[in-house]
């Protein structure tokens, strides 16, 4: 009986700990060995998706967005990381978002339009900065220079949809796939570190 109680107690504690791990949304902080840059990202990005029933009703394109802060000897910069992935098999056709140049969101009624650059180019020589590893591996990654204020707003207001556009003017809208996770370290009630 005692062993059973201990076992049940351990299971309960494990569940509590697991639940805590799953929802705490702590920050992840790393250093880039090549540049000495330290960078911080949230535990998980926001997830947006677009189904394309022409190809599949089960698979879809995904856009992930997440905050990134870099710190070079006290000089902090903020970025919005954008990863585009897909579980769709389009055959020879190119995937969505291969040449995205702009991301658009409506935050609290305000149109937020951000120019995108390839993530690696934006990070310069800091090649180790791979801030997020979502379930669907991004085919392309972009970034945009933003402010902490903007990251906080994105996280607080959690836009219901976002739109990726390329230079040719083609654009596609993605819709929130799951509730926006809390971006610890970038939230409204937290001070900048």
């Amino acid at each position, binding site marked *: 009986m005692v062993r059973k109680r201990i076992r049940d107690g351990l299971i309960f504690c494990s569940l509590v700990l697991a639940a805590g791990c799953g929802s705490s949304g702590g920050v992840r902080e790393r250093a880039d060995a090549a540049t000495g840059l330290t960078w911080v990202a949230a535990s998980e990005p926001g997830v947006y998706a677009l189904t394309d029933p022409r190809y599949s009703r089960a698979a879809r394109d995904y856009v992930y967005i997440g905050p990134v802060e870099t710190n070079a000897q006290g000089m902090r910069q903020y970025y919005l990381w954008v990863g585009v992935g897909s579980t769709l098999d389009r055959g020879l056709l190119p995937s969505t978002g291969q040449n995205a140049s702009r991301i658009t969101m409506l935050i609290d*009624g305000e149109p937020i339009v951000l120019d995108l650059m390839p993530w690696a180019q934006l990070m310069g020589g800091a090649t180790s900065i791979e801030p997020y590893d979502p379930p669907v591996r991004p085919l392309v990654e972009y970034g945009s220079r933003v*402010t902490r204020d903007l990251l906080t707003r994105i996280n607080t207001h959690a836009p219901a949809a976002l739109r990726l556009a390329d230079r040719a003017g083609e654009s596609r809208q993605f819709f929130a796939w799951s509730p926006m996770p809390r971006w610890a370290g970038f939230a409204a009630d937290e001070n900048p570190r």
Partner: protein
Amino acid sequence: MTMGRISPMEPHPRVFLRRCRTSWTVSLMAALGLVGLAPPALTQGRFIDDVQITRSGGVATIDIQLGCPMRYVADMPTDAGLLLEVRMAPFDDCRRIAGGGIASEMLRPPNTQLADLVEVEYESLGIGDGTMFLRFERPVSYRIMQLGNLRTLRIEVDLPDASRLTELVPDAQQPTDDRPADAGSAPAEERQSGQPAPESPDAGPPVSRLPITEAPITETPSAEQPPAETPPVELRAQTRSTAVDPSAADYMINLMSTRDPDVLDPPPQIAAADGQRLYVSRIEVDGITWHRLRLGFFRSEADAQTALAALRERYPRAWIGRAEPAEIGYAREFEFTRKSAPLPVFSADAPAEPTPLDTDAEPLPATRVAELERLGREALLDQDYAAAIEAYTKLVAAPGEHRASAREFLGLAYERRGDIVRARAEYRRYLEEFADSADVVRVRQRLAGLELRDVVPEAPLRAGETEREGPWDLNTSVAQYYRRDQNQFDPDQPEITTLSALFSDLDFYLGRAGRKVDFSTRISASYMSDLLEEDEPGARGDRHRVSYAYADVGASDGRWSTRLGRQSLHTWGVLGRFDGLHFAYDLTPRKELHVTAGYPVESTRDSVQTDRSFYGAAIEFGEIFGDWNLATYVNSQTIDGVDARNAVGTELRYFDERRSFTSTIDYDVDFEELNTLLMLGTWRFPNRLTLSMLYDDRLSPILTTRNALIGQPVSTVDELLLVWSDEEIRQIAVDRTAQSRTVTLGIATPLAERLQLNLDFTRAEISGTIESAGVAAIPELGAQNFASMSLVGTGLLKGGDVNILNFRVGESETFRTGIVTWDSRFPLGRRIRFNPRIRYAVWEGVADGRQRTTVSPMLRFLMDTRNHYRVELEVGIDRQLRTTTVDETEATGRFVNFGYRANF
């Protein structure tokens, strides 16, 4: 429009002569020079009776008065939040409006700017299914509630700052109501979690005390903006940032975004610190051009935050971002020493380079050149600068002698649009390219004029110039439609014209906000000119209607208001339209007194009828506990001097972000009968699933002494009194009144990103009436059960399209019915829309096996012109097959409906 101008549309002289004999309604309309119309549905009333918009603080309230009872089903924001679709379930009373068929109507009510609303549209798919569309100027957050009378749909819209009204009211001139909050605004303001609390009126905007070296950008005088009492908000960043290093500073504050560039003209009153720039960044998002008022540039986000602190109250949605180099370079071209010139506009979609010559391009044919020149010229005259730029850009890009004048006009188009940098670029390129042209002097003058207006300060405004009342606000909607119905009721019979008429409608609003008292007036009237000969089967004769004709006078602070004239109310015991008075007074911030009195209106075709009269009073208690509101009322009515109704009642309402509940109890103390017991609740879950419930138990029609006239050969109670006593008449009234009970349960849920499912089940029971006073009994109808399923797809094929597939089945002891409806809206560009629709209905009598099968395809075409007009064409066919046990009969109906609506 004058009578003379419309007469060519009415070829029959009899019509004109008949109009000369029409009543005061038409005389009034003629005096105004406007004769308006109503689309066919309006002949029997409207689905949208009225839309009233009020605003308190950051919340605008849109009250949509429905022409017949409807139940809210679900709502869905689409088109990036610009379009709100509200699914409604109309009750059987709505059958009188469009005969239970497919119909639509559009309304652009007064004061839309208070809620950033553009228009309201209703599309009926027949009994049990309809959709209300609210198109907004900008994406909004909202809450929906239905009031207990089922005749009012209330939508509260959050507009924290960026709406035009707030923008036009400077901080120091915000209403200085010393009450904690008025009855209407208190709950709404408290719901705005993100809003900063309003400061004391004495505090004014937070102002930095650092001196500024450049003259402030000052607005031109307007009634809403007395500059003398509104010091510009001065800005400064931290000391180290006052001298901005151009190479490092790229942080900017996005103060506000608006779709209406007029909001920024004249520019807001903000004093930029040394080295900073106030400018507009224009960008197109999903086909919508946004104008973003920005202040830059700051060396760090902290500096921008410091500057924003002084502006946060005025621009609560402001955010800090980073500008691209092109934007920074553009804004830096300007020196803000002027006061009222348009702000520089940076187009984030394209660089500010003069339009190049495409050297590889083939010369344009002379006809094409002439056509583009004509288009550009007309667009300039129409102030459609985007179209002018498009035309002249094509001309400039193609080689040929036309390029010189095209480049000059291209510069002019940019200049008129406020894009000064591009205008200057085009003029400068002109002077480089066409230095030998005879028009060089003129272009040089244009360029000099642009450069001069950046440096010449204007005289400061005098304080007294703006201390005056607001301007008159005139809002007029005029529509004229021609409708023709042709029917062949039997294949052996000839086809006959059952309707050929010109419908005209006028909605006139005039208002003015005063310093202490606001005034407004509204007239809504319609007129049908019957174009059929008197002896033709469908001839009805000319008809006019006056739906509204009232004047409003009220305190500017909202403490009291009075409405006098023809108006409509479905609350506080008032039973709809009446000619009379409605007075409202704030007893306390959360207690409001309403007094009503007047003569009920039986038909909008009637003038004032004094045989019936009523008076009543109500008190609205706001937030009695939590989000609960309560109203109690008394209402007394007489007919021909006899008591007709003495009712007391309550209306209880609950309203939060996800749930709403409203109930109405109306009890007649003389008849000792419960007239109405109605409960309506909705619950929206985070996953957007919406549950709704309605319980409606009422006397039908509502019990008044007048019910005694039902089935009688006389039309007044006075005549009944010759035969029966008061008490007997009251008993006859009870005998003629049935009891109806309706229970509805509804579920609405999104199935996928663009697909919504609505399910409804309704059970209705109507009792019979007994035989008395020579009127036969009406047997009980028994229970009627209806089930409805709608699939609503949005943006399935392209952005903005809406497809609705509705299945509805019903059964009772006497009939069975099934209806399938498909309704589709396909936009073609931003101005054109097609609405193909088709309905297939089967009705079958249980007892005798009779069957009716109806197929009704329809096509509607809508086009919005650039100058406030909407043109509409609708055609449809109705094929009906009637089958009995012995024969079959086929009937066919055709209709065409075309016309225009103009809003000024």
